[in-house]
């Protein structure tokens, strides 16, 4: 089974997100970076499918050279190949989608085989555009469903057949059945991503990252500036510093009528 998983490198802020003085971007000077959580589950899902059915997992990202880190992380948890398209995570969604669509064309024509399944995160953790996967699927003329938290494939997952996908709704699941090849937008909760093993870490160091130079025209959406919403300030009332505070806590619960 040939699976492609598209991931995005994003900063990992703590208590608040700072913006650069000109508002053009998140101030990541003192921040670590990570893979967007939905996509981390996408990689795990792809690796699990490969473990069950054989085949290979390719991870692709559009980003700065440092995004190789996220590709190596994916390799450390089981991905086979990494593809980096030099670009900017702040590209507009139409441009990003056009670039990824063309990269998929290149990879598939080289291999003379289609990806049986392509995974995207439901939305990127930072810019939250909610559309790149859908645009790419449309350009490839393959079906896509978003919000997926469960995947099963018919047969050995390759060639014709189906992919059964579950989407969480309040209090339950919707089930979709897509013909292969197809695309899914996945959400965190699809699985519990594994941690890299020592062996995995060593293997990831040797990962040969394929660089693909592709660009596309700008789309119609432009960033003007980023800013933080007004902060909610509250005077915290300290009810105590030990078990004795329980009386005051339950007074509060009683006052709120939740007892």
């Amino acid at each position, binding site marked *: 089974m040939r699976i492609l998983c598209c991931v995005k490198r994003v900063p990992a*802020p703590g*208590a*608040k*997100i700072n913006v650069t003085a000109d508002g053009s971007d998140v101030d990541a000077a003192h921040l670590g970076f990570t893979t967007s*959580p939905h996509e981390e589950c996408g990689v795990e899902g792809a690796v699990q499918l490969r473990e069950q059915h054989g085949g290979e997992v390719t991870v692709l990202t559009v980003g700065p050279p440092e995004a190789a880190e996220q590709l190596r992380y994916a390799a450390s948890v089981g991905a086979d190949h990494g593809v980096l398209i030099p670009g900017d995570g702040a590209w507009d*969604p139409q441009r990003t989608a056009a670039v990824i669509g063309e990269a998929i064309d290149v990879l598939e024509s080289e291999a003379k085989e289609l990806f049986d399944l392509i995974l995207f995160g439901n939305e990127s*953790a930072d*810019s*939250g*555009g*909610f*559309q790149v996967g*859908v*645009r790419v*699927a*449309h*350009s490839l003329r393959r*079906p896509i469903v*978003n919000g997926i938290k469960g995947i099963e494939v018919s047969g050995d997952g390759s060639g014709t057949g189906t992919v059964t996908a579950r*989407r*969480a*709704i309040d*209090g*339950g*699941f*919707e*089930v979709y*059945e*897509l013909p292969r090849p197809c695309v899914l937008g996945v959400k*965190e*909760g699809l699985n*519990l991503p594994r941690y890299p093993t020592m062996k995995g870490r060593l293997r990831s160091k040797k990962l040969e990252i394929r660089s693909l130079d592709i660009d596309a025209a700008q*789309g*119609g*959406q*432009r*960033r*003007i*500036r*980023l*800013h*933080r*919403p007004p902060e909610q300030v*509250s005077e*915290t009332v*300290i*009810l*105590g*510093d*030990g*078990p004795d*505070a*329980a009386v005051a*806590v*339950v007074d*509060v*619960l009683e006052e*709120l009528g*939740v*007892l």
Partner: protein
Amino acid sequence: MLLVVLEHDRGALAEAAREALAFGRSLAEKMDEDLQAALIGSDDGALVAEAGDYGAEVVHTCVHEVLSDYGPDAHGAVLAQMVAELEPSAVLACGSDRGNEVMAQAAARLDAPFAANCVDVTPGSPWTMTRVQWGGSLLEDSSLEAEVALLTCGLHAVAAQPGDSVDADTEAFEADLDESHRVTVVKDRTVQEAGVTLPTAPVVCGGGRGVGSAEGFAQLEELAELLGGRVGCSRAVTNLGWRPHSDQVGQTGTRIAPEIYIASGISGAIQHWVGAMASKHILAINTDREANMVVKADWAVIADLHEVIPAIIAEVRNRKG
């Protein structure tokens, strides 16, 4: 004309549709244009009338065999066809799972830009908008250069208030659909839980890394049960495998809105906070006076949660008699 997408589930109007109508009413006013609505997969007069309660003059309804249940392809195709034929200046849905998905589907078909999760929109050339990023921790002012502005409004960006009520007209829309559009129609559904769910629970007892183990959550379970609430958790806890992801509160988890959120052993990282900030009241239990969760809470107990929670449980039992 502004066209608002009426999200519904097998004929039941979604709260998201009411929010989109309320947001759309003020946007249509700013545009100085008509408010109309798109009802895809139903032509139920009750839904048309309700859209009228929010000021929609005309509701374009589309029924077809393929629209028997929700399907992103079929709904996206109909919406794109409506845009081509009705030529609205802008199209608005609510930024729910389905709303964002259908708008992305239509945008891909029309090869038009789409701005998701707007909290403020100014019509013009170009259009400008403020949209939510990082699940609500950050805002982006952006511009949209397009023949038709495709937009969703952030979930809960406005209250779903009716207004400017009119008798809405129904216009049947003939869509060009075939069996191929059935490809992503919902095939089946499973209902997992009934009763109080995390997004609707009146009390949420949240636990973070400070709880220390999966077993440590037994006390939070007990407290939640006593208060008719649900247990929530942080991503640290989900990643450690202590709780299922369905309990996770935050940007990539569930957004909660209880009367009170009791957050124990949770530092209050921004991605957790955006899922908890709609709580009416917050009580933090943490050993660290400076933890973000404590600073943002209404009340706090600065102590070891393993000592405080059992004492709260005992006190609740005591008062309940």
